[in-house]
């Protein structure tokens, strides 16, 4: 029997800015548990008057990252929780969290593929945990990441993704920049669409290979990508989604 999940107090051990709006927060946990790639932690803040609010943040670290967890958190300007992380918390501070949780949006070596990852903005965070875990396990499941960002400065894990892609058996990494592209940009320059998905899936055996798809990001992106994949013939049970929902 698995020990039930409970809230615990973690300690921030490291903060690494990834972009202007996204940072990696590494948190040490007294009751650390191995997580599965794609899972998240719930974070709870309590005000002095007792008011509580909580949000879920995806784990970016590979499953073997003991006894800490790395969360990727985007600063939402009018948010209740993320500005506290970005503007207030420093290394050594305490934060209350519960996890790892969310066993449905999970991929780990052994679940098969081909693996199709589609991310928008900080939706790449749980997908990164999948790619890092795949790499750490030496897994050769064909894998592709299609990652949509606004501008080149908004790409999270840019260098690490390039390194992963260059490894033997590394994932295919396709990027699209929807708002602004540098002059030498050789990736896509529009929102994710059926044509783009078809081309990316072509690198991992095509749609008839029935890829296992994970889509994470802003609700509209997830909705469009999921609809495009099922319209292209992928069975809905092969498509797992994680929507951000309304941002606040």
């Amino acid at each position, binding site marked *: 029997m698995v020990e*039930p999940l409970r809230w615990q107090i973690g300690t921030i051990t490291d903060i690494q800015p990834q972009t202007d709006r996204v940072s990696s927060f590494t948190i040490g946990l007294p009751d650390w548990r191995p997580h599965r790639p794609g899972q998240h932690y719930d974070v709870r803040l309590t005000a002095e008057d007792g008011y509580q609010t909580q949000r*879920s943040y995806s784990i970016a670290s590979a499953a073997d990252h003991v006894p800490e967890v790395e969360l990727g958190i985007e600063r939402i300007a009018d948010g209740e929780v993320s500005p506290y992380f970005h503007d207030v918390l420093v290394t050594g501070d305490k934060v209350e969290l519960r996890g790892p*949780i969310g066993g449905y949006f999970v991929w780990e070596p052994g679940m098969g593929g081909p693996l199709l990852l589609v991310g928008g903005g900080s939706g790449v965070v749980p997908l990164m945990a999948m790619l890092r875990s795949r790499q750490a396990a030496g897994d050769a499941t064909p894998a592709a990441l299609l990652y949509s960002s606004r501008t080149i400065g908004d790409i999270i894990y840019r260098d690490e993704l390039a390194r992963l892609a260059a490894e033997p058996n590394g994932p295919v990494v396709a990027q699209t920049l929807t708002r602004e592209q540098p002059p030498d940009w050789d990736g896509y320059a529009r929102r994710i669409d059926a044509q783009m998905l078809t081309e990316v899936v072509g690198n991992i055996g095509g749609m008839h290979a029935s890829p296992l798809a994970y889509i994470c990001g802003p609700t509209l992106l997830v*909705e469009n990508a999921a609809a495009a994949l099922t319209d292209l013939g992928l069975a809905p049970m092969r498509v797992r989604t*994680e929507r951000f929902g309304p941002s606040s």
Partner: protein
Amino acid sequence: MKRTALDDPLMLDANAVAGELAEMMGGVDITTFMTRCAHCGNHDALGSLRAWAHGPGVVLRCVICSQVVVRWVRTPQGARVDLRGAAFLEPR
């Protein structure tokens, strides 16, 4: 393609409320359990359901027929989980 009842910016995936659901289920993550929709018979993981979590309670709807499968509300007297929309759950 128009997705009618499921076409809602407030919609989340049940995976997102796994922690709150686990809190009422003795700390066990049941979003990995398979479930059958009592309305249309769709068979998939509970985590595949769509979630509406911005009201006083939480509602999980079938991704195929959009009918309510699971809902819960928390009161000062404790939680109430209504599973009438699930024909069954398969623990795993």
